[in-house]
C-alpha cells in the first residue's frame, strides 16, 4: 500500500523522532545547533552546574555577531559588557570543545549567514539556534527554528528537544516579480497580508513558480522573516538550485557522500496530494516594492500606498495599536510615505546582507552619491562576503557614493553593538524588525528591500526605486 502523501515538513519531522510517548511532546533529534554570544551564556552556566558536557560538539557551531562592533577589527571592543560576553563565548567554546568563529576569525559573521555559506546548513536537517531568525536556514529545505536559552541548554546537553508538531501552512507564490521588486517584498507582503500573528503555531512551506525562480540567497531572505508573520519556521523544498549552491562548500558532503546525500535530499519535496492545514496564495506579478509604516513588520504596504487611518478600524484594540504606532512614528494617516525625510539607511542584517543584496544596492549607488543628510551604512553579513564584495569592487562603489563600508555583524539591526539610531531619527533599513526602539531607543524604522534602501539613500527621502531604474 502506498504511504500517505506527506509534506516536506512532515517528512523532516518524522525523520527526527527519537522517542514518542502518549501525552508528551516528541523527542526530536537536532542535526545542527548554532550558538551565538547573547542567548548562550546562561545555558553553558546551567551545563556547568549540572556537571554535563556538550553531547555533540561535532553538531554544534558558534560565532559572535549580535553584541560585536562592526568597526575595524584592529580596534578593541570598547563596551566592557559586550567584551565580556564575547570573551565568555570564546571560553565556553574552548571548554566544551565547540567549533567557533571568533571575533578575529577571518570567517566570522552573522550566525544565519555563515551557516549556509559554509555548507553547515543542509536539506532535511533540523537546525536550531537561540535566535528567532533561525528560520533563514529553511531556504535549504531544513526545519529550522529559534529556541530560548533553556532549550539551548537542553540541546547542548542532549542534542534533542521536546517539541509538539506544528501545523503546516502553504504559502504559494506564483508568477514573476516585476523590475524593482525583490524577494524582500514577497515576505513583507506576506506579513502585511496575514499580520505578525498570522502564522502562529505553523511552519510555512513556500511554494510556487515565483519561489522556484528565486536564488538561494533570495530564498533565505524570504524564509528569514517567517517569524515576522508568527511562524516559527518557514522552508523551501530543495531543488537543483539548492544543490548547486551547496556543492563544494566547506562542510558540505564530498565525493560519494555527496551523491548519497543528494539522492536522499531528492526524496524530501512534498508529495503530490499532501494536505496542508492552511493555504494562501500571493500573485507575484501584482507585487510592488513594499515598505513598513508602523512598529511591527505586519504594518506594511506597497510603496505607492498611503499610511492607513486608525479611524477606519472597527476593533478598538487594533485601532489603538495603529494609533500608538503612528504616534511613535510621527506619521500622518492618509498620507503617502514616499517623500518622507530620512536620516539613516542601513543595508545589512541576516535578511539582506549577502552578496546579491550588496550587488543590488551597488547597482543603484554606482555613479550616484548618497544624500548629504543621510548616514548610509553597508554592513556585510560575514567576513567572507566582505572579501567577495571587495574582490568585485563593491566597496569602492559604496565609498565613492559616500556610504560607510563596515565589518561583519548584526550592526544596526539590533541596537546592542554601538550601531544605533538616536531618538527621533528615521531609517530605511533592510533588516527585519521595526519594533519601537529596535534600532536604537526612540528610533523609527521603515523596513524595505536593498533596492528601496539604496534609492532612498540617494534621494534622502523614502523612494520608489522604480523611479531610478
Amino acid at each position, binding site marked *: 500500500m502506498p504511504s500517505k502523501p506527506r509534506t516536506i515538513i512532515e517528512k523532516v519531522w518524522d525523520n527526527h523522532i527519537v522517542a514518542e510517548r502518549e501525552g508528551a511532546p516528541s523527542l526530536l533529534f537536532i542535526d545542527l545547533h548554532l550558538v551565538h554570544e547573547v*542567548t548562550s551564556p546562561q545555558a553553558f552556566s546551567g551545563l556547568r552546574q549540572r556537571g554535563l558536557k556538550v553531547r555533540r560538539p561535532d553538531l554544534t557551531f558558534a560565532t559572535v555577531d549580535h553584541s560585536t562592533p562592526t568597526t575595524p577589527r584592529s580596534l578593541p571592543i570598547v563596551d566592557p559588557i559586550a567584551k565580556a560576553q564575547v570573551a565568555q563565548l570564546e571560553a565556553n567554546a574552548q571548554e566544551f570543545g565547540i567549533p567557533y568563529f571568533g571575533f578575529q576569525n577571518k570567517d566570522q559573521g552573522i550566525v544565519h549567514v555563515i551557516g549556509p555559506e559554509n555548507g553547515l546548513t543542509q536539506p532535511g536537517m533540523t537546525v536550531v539556534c537561540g535566535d528567532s531568525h533561525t528560520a533563514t536556514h529553511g531556504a535549504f529545505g531544513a526545519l529550522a527554528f529559534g529556541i*530560548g536559552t533553556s532549550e539551548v541548554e537542553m540541546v547542548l546537553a*542532549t*542534542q534533542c528537544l521536546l517539541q509538539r508538531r506544528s501545523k503546516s501552512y502553504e504559502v504559494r507564490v506564483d508568477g514573476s516579480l516585476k523590475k524593482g521588486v525583490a524577494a524582500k517584498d514577497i515576505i513583507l507582503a506576506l506579513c502585511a497580508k496575514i499580520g505578525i500573528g498570522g502564522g502562529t503555531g505553523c511552519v510555512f512551506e513556500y511554494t510556487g513558480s515565483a519561489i522556484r525562480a528565486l536564488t538561494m540567497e533570495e530564498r533565505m531572505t524570504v524564509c528569514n522573516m517567517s*517569524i515576522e508573520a508568527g511562524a516559527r519556521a518557514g522552508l523551501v523544498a530543495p531543488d537543483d538550485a539548492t544543490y548547486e549552491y551547496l556543492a563544494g562548500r566547506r562542510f558540505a558532503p564530498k565525493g560519494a557522500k555527496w551523491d548519497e546525500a543528494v539522492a536522499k535530499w531528492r526524496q524530501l519535496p512534498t508529495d503530490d496530494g499532501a494536505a496542508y492545514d492552511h493555504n494562501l496564495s500571493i500573485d507575484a506579478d501584482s507585487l510592488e516594492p513594499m515598505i513598513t509604516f508602523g512598529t511591527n513588520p505586519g504594518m506594511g504596504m506597497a510603496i505607492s500606498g498611503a499610511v492607513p487611518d486608525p479611524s477606519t478600524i472597527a476593533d478598538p484594540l487594533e485601532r489603538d495599536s495603529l494609533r500608538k504606532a503612528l504616534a511613535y512614528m510621527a506619521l500622518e494617516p492618509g498620507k503617502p510615505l514616499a517623500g518622507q525625510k530620512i536620516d539613516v539607511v542601513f543595508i545589512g542584517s541576516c535578511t539582506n546582507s549577502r552578496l546579491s543584496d550588496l550587488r543590488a544596492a551597488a547597482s543603484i549607488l554606482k555613479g550616484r552619491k548618497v544624500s548629504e543628510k543621510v548616514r548610509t551604512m553597508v554592513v556585510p553579513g560575514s567576513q567572507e562576503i566582505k572579501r567577495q564584495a571587495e574582490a568585485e569592487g563593491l566597496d569602492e562603489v559604496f565609498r565613492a557614493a559616500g556610504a560607510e563600508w563596515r565589518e561583519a555583524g548584526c550592526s544596526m539591526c539590533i541596537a*546592542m553593538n554601538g550601531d544605533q539610531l538616536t531618538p527621533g531619527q528615521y531609517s530605511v533599513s533592510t533588516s527585519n524588525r521595526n519594533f519601537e526602539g529596535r534600532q536604537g531607543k526612540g528610533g523609527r524604522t521603515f523596513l524595505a528591500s536593498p533596492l528601496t534602501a539604496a534609492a532612498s539613500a540617494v534621494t534622502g527621502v523614502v523612494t520608489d526605486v522604480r523611479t531610478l531604474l
Partner: protein
Amino acid sequence: MKFESTVTQIPVDNIDTDQIIPARFLKTISKDGLGDQLFFDWRYNADGSPKPEFILNTEKAKASNVLLAGDNFGCGSSREHAPWALSQYGFQAVISTSFADIFKQNSLKNRLVPLVVSREVHQQLRDALAANPDLKVSVDVEAQTLTWSGGPVEQFPIDPFAKHCLLAGVDEIGYVTQHEAQIAAYEAERFATLNTLTN
C-alpha cells in the same frame, strides 16, 4: 500551582520582546537583575527616572502577580530574558488572547503561565476591571481555571506535558537524559551515513 492576585493591565496588541526587555540589556551573561529592566523604554524617562504614570511603576502593580495584555503577546525575538524579566518583576501569569510560540515555550520553562482566553472573556475581564480596579482573579493551573468574583469560570488550555512539569516541578533536561538509550540508538542508525561537521 494556585494564586490570587490583582491584575496589571497593559492592553496593547502585539507587545514584542524588544518592548518587554530592550536588546541592550541582553549583553549580560547572567539571569539576574532583569526585573528592573522590564518594559524599560516604556517605564523610564531619558534620564533614567521612572515615569510615575506608567503602570509598572505603581505600588499596586508591584504587588500584583498577573499581567493582562493584548493579542499576540511576546512576538519577536527568542530571548528568554523576556520571561525572566516578567517573573523577576513578580508576575506568575500573563493573560492574553494569544501568545507567540517561542515566548509561550520560554514562559512555561520559567513557571510563568501564558494564560490564553477568548476575546470575549478578555473583554469581560477588562470590563470587570473597569468597574473595579482592585478586582482579584484566581488562577488554578491544576484545574486550568481563571475565575473572579462575578465572572465566568474560564477554562484555559495548557499543554498537558507542560502542566505536568509545572505541577510536579519536572526538570526537563533530567527527563530527556532518561532517554539516553533511545538517543544513542537513533544516533547509531542516523550517523552510519550522515555527515557531521567534522568530516
